[in-house]
């Protein structure tokens, strides 16, 4: 019986945690405002960016890697997008398409951010695969380098006064479809796509294989370097996209944007049951992880808990989830021994 309870707790730990938090906040917030549609939509809006980053981070972490540079990439790509929206498509002072009409300029900014994000991701990937630098160190270096370039971009000033049609991408006024902010739709679409990529495609299988046992994968004909390069590019593109959404949301591209976002993304992934040792993890888990973090942040604010205590609770929840995961691993190991 005790084992049964533990089993349910470990298999559905994150779902249970989400339910407990929702019920608790519903009961304890004044007039149950937590559970109002408006607040629930707010929560999804608040977690959209972390979910998008978490998706990329899930790919990276399943290969037993890590990417600490995403917050910086987000800031830099936001600046690139804002700059292009305002000043047209240009590379290194050479203007390619000046004075494009606004809707087209927004598209240019978006694509520019995605390309730059992917490019930075590919640099991370090359350093990690070709030069065999540990991912933690490689992306730690990228984190500060890219952050530096973000400050250099506009002499440390944000780029503001962006056109309205750009701001709509952030999900503010007019930026909604069926009452749901655009970033939430984007995140949802990406959840669905990436879930199928990971669970149904050859590439997805290879991502798991590389994380599960890189040498065995290589000897089974998996181009392990290409797989690893790809996951860092995916991460970079998604960080670029997140940068656009973030800049649009606050109508300003700020070189200080995205500080600590890499850690929030990692937290969502780990809460969702991915193993930092690689080989294990799901997109749906990451979505749940992002939801738990979002619900917790929102609920604690609703209850008027001080910012400092919010941080404490966030840490406690992460620790609890990871301990549950450890219990699950121990349980599986015991079953294996019994089976033998």
């Amino acid at each position, binding site marked *: 019986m005790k084992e049964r309870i533990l089993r349910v707790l470990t298999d559905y730990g994150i779902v249970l945690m989400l339910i407990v938090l929702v019920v608790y906040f519903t009961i304890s917030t004044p007039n149950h405002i937590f559970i109002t549609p408006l607040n629930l939509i707010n929560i999804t809006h608040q977690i959209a960016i972390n979910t998008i980053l978490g998706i990329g981070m899930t790919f990276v972490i399943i290969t037993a890697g890590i990417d600490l540079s995403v917050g910086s990439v987000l800031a830099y790509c936001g600046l690139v997008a804002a700059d292009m929206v305002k000043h047209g498509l240009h590379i290194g002072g050479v203007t390619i398409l000046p004075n494009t009409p606004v809707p087209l300029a927004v598209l240019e900014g978006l694509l520019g951010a995605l390309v730059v994000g992917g490019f930075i991701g590919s640099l991370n990937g090359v350093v990690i695969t070709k030069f065999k630098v540990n991912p933690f160190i490689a992306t730690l270096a990228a984190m500060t380098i890219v952050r530096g370039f973000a400050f250099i971009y506009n002499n440390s000033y944000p780029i503001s006064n962006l056109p309205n049609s750009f701001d709509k991408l952030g999900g503010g006024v007019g930026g909604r479809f069926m009452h749901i902010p655009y970033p939430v739709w984007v995140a949802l679409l990406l959840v669905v796509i990436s879930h199928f990529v990971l669970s149904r495609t*050859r590439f997805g299988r290879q991502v798991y294989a590389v994380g599960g046992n890189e040498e*065995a994968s290589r000897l089974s004909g998996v181009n392990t370097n290409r797989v690893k390069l790809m996951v860092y590019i995916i991460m970079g593109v998604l960080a670029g996209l997140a940068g656009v959404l973030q800049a649009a949301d606050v109508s300003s591209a700020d070189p200080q944007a995205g500080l600590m976002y890499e850690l929030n993304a990692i937290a969502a992934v780990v809460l969702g049951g991915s193993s930092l040792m690689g080989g294990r993890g799901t997109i749906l888990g990451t979505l749940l992880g992002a939801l738990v973090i979002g619900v917790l942040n929102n609920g604690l604010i609703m209850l008027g808990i001080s910012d400092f205590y919010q941080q404490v609770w966030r840490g406690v929840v992460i620790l609890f989830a990871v301990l549950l995961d450890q219990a699950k691993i121990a349980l599986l190991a015991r079953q294996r021994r019994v089976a033998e």
Partner: protein
Amino acid sequence: MTEEAVVPALEMRHISKTFPGVRALDDVSLTVMLGEVHALLGENGAGKSTLMKILAGAHPKDTGEILLNGKPVHIDSPQSAMELGISIIYQEFNLVPYLNAAENIFLGREPRAKIPSFVDFRKMYADAQAIIDRLGVKLNVRTPVNRLSVAQQQMVEIAKATSRKSRVIVMDEPSATLTEHELASLFTLIRQLQSEGVSIVYISHRLEEVFEIANRVTILRDGRWVATEKVADLDRDQIIRYMVGRELKDIIPKAPAAVKEPALRVVHLNRTGVLHDINLTVHCGEVLGLAGLVGAGRTEVARAIFGADPIDSGRIELFGKPVRIHSPESAIRHGIGLITEDRKAQGLILGMAVRENTTLANLAALSRFGFVCRAKEREAATKYVKDLRVRTPTIEQAVQNLSGGNQQKVVLAKWLFTKSKILLFDEPTRGIDVGAKTEIYQLINQLAAEGVAIIMISSELPEILGMSDRILVMHEGRIAGELSRAEATQEKIMHLATGGE
């Protein structure tokens, strides 16, 4: 043996040990006298290492007892073995690379200074140097271990053992990485330890060394004790006969191959310091045995052919056409498969299901537009589980939950599914039970009959002799000789493998 008047320094009596699916030791006994150098011999897998690991407290024994100087002792951890004066010097040394020789010798037992928790470095260096000097080794104990030669590191290990007042020192293949000159000084050192009353268990594949240094020898085979005799009463051939024993030729039915066209030809293959001028040809339908001692370069040949390691020169031809294989990916595209020696580290994704492991090397065959067709995948996995009789509850079982033999079958399923025309088997039956072994032999024979060209590496001589149409023997990175199935005997293989002319 004659009545022993003196009490032996070490006695291991009736030791048995079973690992899941494998009986590693069956009623093995070993007696080592005071100040004796006792050689422990046997083929790979005979149980030498297991016996020594039990002595060292690394594995618990199932039954049997261990006596030191006639008194029964209880060894349940490496710690307790050490405290009883037993030291083991493994092939891979247990030294901390960035600490110096003295720090390594006294690791965990540093002499204390007057101030609590500080180390008395002066005393430590003086003591360490004294030990090193007494062993007759030229070495500055302040040198970091990673800057010492392999031979010097070994001396540090021995110094560490003697500084602990070890009464029994086990040396596992101590000569494997030594030059002749270094070996001579190792022998001098062993003789000195011997004169001080230290007993030495000496494990080696090189019989000449055994004749030179050992007093007595114990021979194991298939986890059983075979003989213990004075070295002076034995000759080389007798020892080899003791080691190899039974013939497998009669157990495995083998149809002689109808040899067809050459499938794979390796010409002047070199990898600096590892492989020297390797030439070989394997034909369709043929099983080519690759014999030799551990470290002779057999695995390296397979890995070079498979593109897993880079080569420095040489070429590879497939069905008469030269090909460039620069990665396992391209080897697989050319129809080559490698069943690795270490299935857990290199053959399987342990956390993945039987289904996923089976299809990993040939997902392309199951994919459309990059999506894996699940129905086809399940069908393929189910087929191979059935064909190979993999004992697993479902194809969704994680392979880490299967027994060794069944894991190996999943590895084989993976390569069968790639429809490889050339298969390289590296120790295909290591660590699996007898039943599964026979099934794997039958499968190899069946593949050969279907025209697959096979190279089989094995350290088990009966297996090589029973399975191969032709045998190449390797020694120190070179091909030392070729034997036809008719002329091959265990003695001839051992002769070539140990560097005999």
